[in-house]
């Protein structure tokens, strides 16, 4: 009995070690390729930034206010995109190298087919976050200038509505979560809308009451118009 256990343990350890030894060249190739591409990416990003600086690229985007929310230097943003693009390419090549050095087949095909989804999801995430931030702040400032006491709540609510919508779209695009995401999104989105409706409804209760009273009740007689004592313009 003891011998059998020891034998099976030896066999399983042997198999794992053999598997690791088989994978090692692939992993080494993957890391090497990644390092090479990272170095190429860093070089290209540096060159891109220098070229864009020479072309006064940042000055051309001075008029774009929403972009300034993200970066003070669009040329640096482009350089970062170049670096991470090359790095991503390195990951793909590294996976191919890993596949070539191991007995597993189909890994690179699966990853390659997934890349467009990842790119699309990243774009969605970028746009969604930007829209959420701009929209949330717009609502907040407009609410404050309209003297709405719940302006902050309204702004935060709108921002999270867009963020939740974005997250659901990103997960859906990546095909992660399946029906759970749809369900969770529906519950969360509906919950936020309901909470906002309650907050606005309760906050505006007096306003609605006065408005209805004006519509239903007797019309007040026009009194003397109080002259405004100050003018902003």
């Amino acid at each position, binding site marked *: 009995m003891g011998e059998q256990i020891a034998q099976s343990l030896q066999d399983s350890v042997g198999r794992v070690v053999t598997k690791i030894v088989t994978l090692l060249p692939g992993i080494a190739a993957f890391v090497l390729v990644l390092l090479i591409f990272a170095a190429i990416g860093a070089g290209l990003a540096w060159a891109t930034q220098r070229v864009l600086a020479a072309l006064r690229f940042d000055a051309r985007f001075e008029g774009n*206010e929403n972009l300034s*929310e993200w970066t003070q230097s669009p040329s640096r943003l482009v350089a970062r995109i170049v670096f991470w693009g090359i790095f991503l390419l390195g990951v793909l090549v590294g996976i191919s190298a890993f596949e070539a050095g191991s007995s597993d087949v189909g890994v690179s095909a699966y990853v390659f087919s997934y890349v467009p989804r990842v790119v699309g999801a990243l774009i969605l995430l970028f746009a969604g976050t930007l829209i959420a931030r701009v929209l949330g702040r717009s609502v*907040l400032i407009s609410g*404050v200038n309209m003297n709405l006491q719940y302006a902050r709540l309204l702004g935060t609510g709108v921002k999270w509505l867009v963020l939740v919508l974005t997250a659901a779209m990103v997960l859906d695009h990546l095909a992660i979560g399946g029906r759970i995401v749809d369900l969770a999104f529906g519950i969360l989105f509906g919950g936020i809308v309901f909470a906002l409706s309650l907050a606005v409804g309760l906050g505006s209760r007096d306003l609605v009451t006065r408005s209805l009273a004006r519509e239903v009740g007797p019309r007040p007689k026009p009194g003397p118009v109080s002259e405004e*004592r*100050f003018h902003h*313009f």
Partner: protein
Amino acid sequence: MSKIDTEPVVRERELVGGNGEELEAQHSARAAAQPASALFAGISGAVDAEQLRARAATLEGSGMLGGAHLTLAYPGADTERVTIGPGVDLLSYPLPSGEGGASPWVQTAAAEGALLALSAESQAQATVVLHPDLAALSPSMLMQLARPILTEGAGLVMAGYTQGPFDSLVTHSILAPLTRALYGKRVRYPLAPDFALAPRVAARLAMSAHSGVSPVLWPTTVAAGLDAVVVEAELGLQHPAPPGVDLSAAITQLAGSAFAEMEAHAPLWQRIRPAVQAPTPLTSRGPAATEAHSIDTGPMINSFLLGSRSLQDVWGMVLPPVSLLDLKRLALLAPDKFRMPDELWVRIIYDFALSYRLRTINRTHLLGALTPLYLGWVASFVNEAKADPAFIAEARTERLARAFEDGKPYLVRRWRWPDRFNP
């Protein structure tokens, strides 16, 4: 009429070596020797044509134009020049169709641009722009505006108005002191709808209208750029406030336009130092304590407090920590003790201008976040008037303007080195 920028006149007096009366006599003689002056006056908005004709006939009959030939332009469909008399012609121009919902200032600026183009064609010696209510279309006021240009060599004459102590508060709290500190011109109404221009200033302002830098025209900035003499003429009238204007939208428009001008003329205003000039005579906006007691500052303070609670994140991106701390202290004050120090208000305006330039956040958001702060300033201004029976609004705004001038080195420093540590 008060001379706003007296330096060039003083220089001229020194050159001729005479006193003021001699100079005036020389000016009169020079004016008399010249052929009849061509005066161009334009109405910057829709008017009743019949009322305008009646006023034009009065001008013709008054004989107060001193032999100057007047072309009076007004918005209309006729294209032919109508002669009212030997001294006055009427000319209509198509009113530029502004975008839907454009503010009154933008509409006025579009009309002013069209008028300046017409004026350039007429080769007038002085161009006068008038408010569409025609209150300033009288021989005396017309000449009050045009005379410094025709006879005294002024480049720009801005109208002054008789107003209450709490009128035109955006102008007195932001636009006028900012213009004075930046461009060294003491003008109480930098966006006055009545003003007169010398040909070279008119030509430059017409170029400015087409440049698209700002949707609103700033004659004082243009005159400062040309180093022209700027004079203020007290007309003793008051135009009605534009109706139905949303405060936040208007502040966004006006302050945004002023900041855009700052950005466009940064090299100019950075080298201008506040001129040492005689104090502006207190011609209007007198004692205010009685009127102040009828103003409820509660809603304004509440707006400020709401902003203080909700907009800390936005203000934190624009204002330095010391200003944020001062604002937090303000928020803790009792309503009757609510006072915003001038230095704080000046720093707020300068830091907002800087953020506008640096695009720290979306510009519409930035300017929208200024409204609660402005209402805080108004509440503080009214509270001061309530507390002090001898409160004179004009003297108070003069003190504020000096604070803007004193704070200018801070602006210049931050403008040049925005990344430096600023506690």
